[in-house]
């Protein structure tokens, strides 16, 4: 296994150098000189109504009166950029620029970016929730746990942006029922959504989050950026979610995914600490 891992390290090093080169050639991207300095540590936190997210306990409620518990939460974040002066940005390419988070696996909560960001004052950070079209390539992750996020080819392929598995009930139900709050590429149907023959096109549902709050990257310092997901916002910001509106789930219901992703734009907050 160790040998395997060192192979991966070597392989990803080679890959990284390739990426750096291509960045260099691309005129719009600032040249990155690899330094040990100016590293960023992203830290991921999951809250519900301001408190640490608890799993498997029926203690949450939507504004529509659904009680719910969260059982699993896994998602991708990608395309991190740090920005300064207009039109100048630096794309973070550590780990191919994609980070997988399992909210029940603390080892995924920290992402240390080893790009060596040039020191200076930056005015914002942005990232993509999920994977953009260029990065959402089927079969790119052969290994678990990322592999298990795959999104079926027939439904658009690539990977789930997020799997949030939950159970919910309303006042007329006795037992909590499963709900899969799964997001990824949507489909356009010309007719019945249970019939994949009527798919006439696909819709990218990923979105970009940008946070403006100036921060400094200094030589020999680690800048911590805390990324918070406020779970309740997924169900209650722009569109109040009622789980009973989606008896078949939302993977094949673009309206459902659209509403969820509109809410998702409000679900993230960023804080940076020195």
């Amino acid at each position: 296994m160790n040998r395997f891992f060192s192979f991966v390290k070597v392989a990803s090093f080679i890959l990284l150098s390739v990426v750096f080169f291509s960045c260099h050639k691309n005129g719009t991207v600032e040249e990155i000189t690899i330094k040990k300095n100016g590293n960023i540590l992203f830290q991921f936190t999951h809250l519900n109504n301001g408190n640490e997210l608890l799993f498997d306990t029926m203690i949450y409620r939507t504004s529509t009166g659904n009680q719910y518990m969260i059982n699993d939460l896994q998602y991708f974040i990608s395309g991190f950029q740090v920005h300064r002066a207009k039109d100048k940005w630096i794309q973070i390419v550590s780990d191919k620029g994609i980070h997988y988070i399992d909210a029940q696996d603390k080892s995924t909560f920290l992402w240390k970016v080893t790009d060596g960001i040039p020191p200076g004052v930056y005015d914002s950070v942005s990232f993509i929730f999920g994977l953009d079209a260029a990065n959402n390539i089927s079969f790119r992750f052969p290994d678990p746990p990322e592999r298990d996020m795959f999104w079926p080819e027939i439904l658009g392929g690539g990977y789930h942006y997020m799997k949030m598995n939950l159970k919910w009930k309303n006042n007329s139900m006795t037992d909590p029922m499963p709900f899969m709050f799964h997001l990824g590429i949507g489909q356009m149907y010309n007719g019945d959504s249970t019939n994949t023959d009527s798919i006439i096109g696909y819709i990218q549902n990923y979105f970009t989050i940008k946070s403006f709050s100036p921060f400094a990257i200094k030589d020999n310092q680690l800048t911590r950026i805390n990324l918070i997901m406020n779970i309740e916002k997924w169900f209650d910001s722009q569109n109040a979610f009622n789980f009973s509106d989606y008896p078949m789930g939302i993977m094949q219901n673009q309206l459902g995914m659209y509403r969820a992703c509109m809410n998702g734009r409000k679900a993230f907050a960023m804080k940076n600490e020195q």
Partner: protein
Amino acid sequence: MMFVLMITILSSCKKKEDQTTTYTPTPYAIQIPLRFPSLLNIPKDNPMTQEGIELGRYLFYDGRLSGRTDPDSMMSCSTCHIQSNSFVCGIDHPKFKGGHPFGITGIPTSHYMLPMINLVWNTTGYLWNGAIYPGNPDIQSRNLEDIVRLVMTIPQEMYADTNRVKILFQQLNGYPGLFQKAFGSDVITIKNMGKAIAQFVRTLISANSKFDRFMRGEVQLNSEELDGYVLFMTEQGGDCFHCHGGDGNPLFTTNLCYNNGKDSVFTDPLDHYSVTKNSMDIGAYKAPTLRNLAFTAPYMHDGRFKTIDEVIDFYSSGLVWSPSISPLMHHLRTGGVQLTPIKKAHLKAFLLTLTDSSFVINPAFGRPAKLPD
């Protein structure tokens, strides 16, 4: 007298020399089929070698592993794990009625069988309840090597006296030399037996079903199979892929445990809960690979379904609620995925495209023509 002594000294010297020169095992690299994981579950202290695998294959098929030599009471891995059935004993086994095996003592195994397919890619947990996993605080329960020791000792299987096994194999002419070649020592240990068998088991790879060939662009699925494939892969269809993999996961298992909604009362003390002590894992078991289902009846940890049709009927309309049912069983409100008879037939047709007949006759996995004596 002096002469005799000298000869023995000489010959023992010679033997020593041989020992150092003969231990040059040939490394064996697993060929990774298209889109299979690159991450292999091979412990650092047991690298795969041609010699290790060859020895492992002999041991896998050798009934003397049970420490017994009487043909009626010998037991090997292959007594239960039979290649022609994708390494389960089979529902029509003459001795193990209905496919439920029992050990030398007559005590039945706690669960029905699991096939041995692509186990080198299981990085999360072996056995139905996932009790054997890397990183287990119990260092004796981490990998295939440990399963061998377990099998040898428990009354549900070989119930062997491991000292006797060691002595027995040490005395057989053929084996010490094979251990020498595989591990650099002709002293036979249970540990090295475990290592060798584990190496052999890691070579049991199936990646040549019709579906594999379809994914490689070599064959086309017929319209029933294609429809079944879509059912398998869609949330509003059969919704099987979340737990059993599919186009993005050619193992056809996540190797994770779920409660798939068969019961509302749970009495088996060896479910996944027994491993994690998390109440959400009550009644949860590993979602097994769906490869080679054609050979592996009966189905589920308790063998409750005799046919694939019964399994599909269950997912279609037989789900029952329990507090620990997996949140991925989201068709629970309607009792299941509600497939029409035609859709059921198509789903089954797709499942049968996962049949790899070359696996069950691959000579490299079969019984050696002759065991060492």
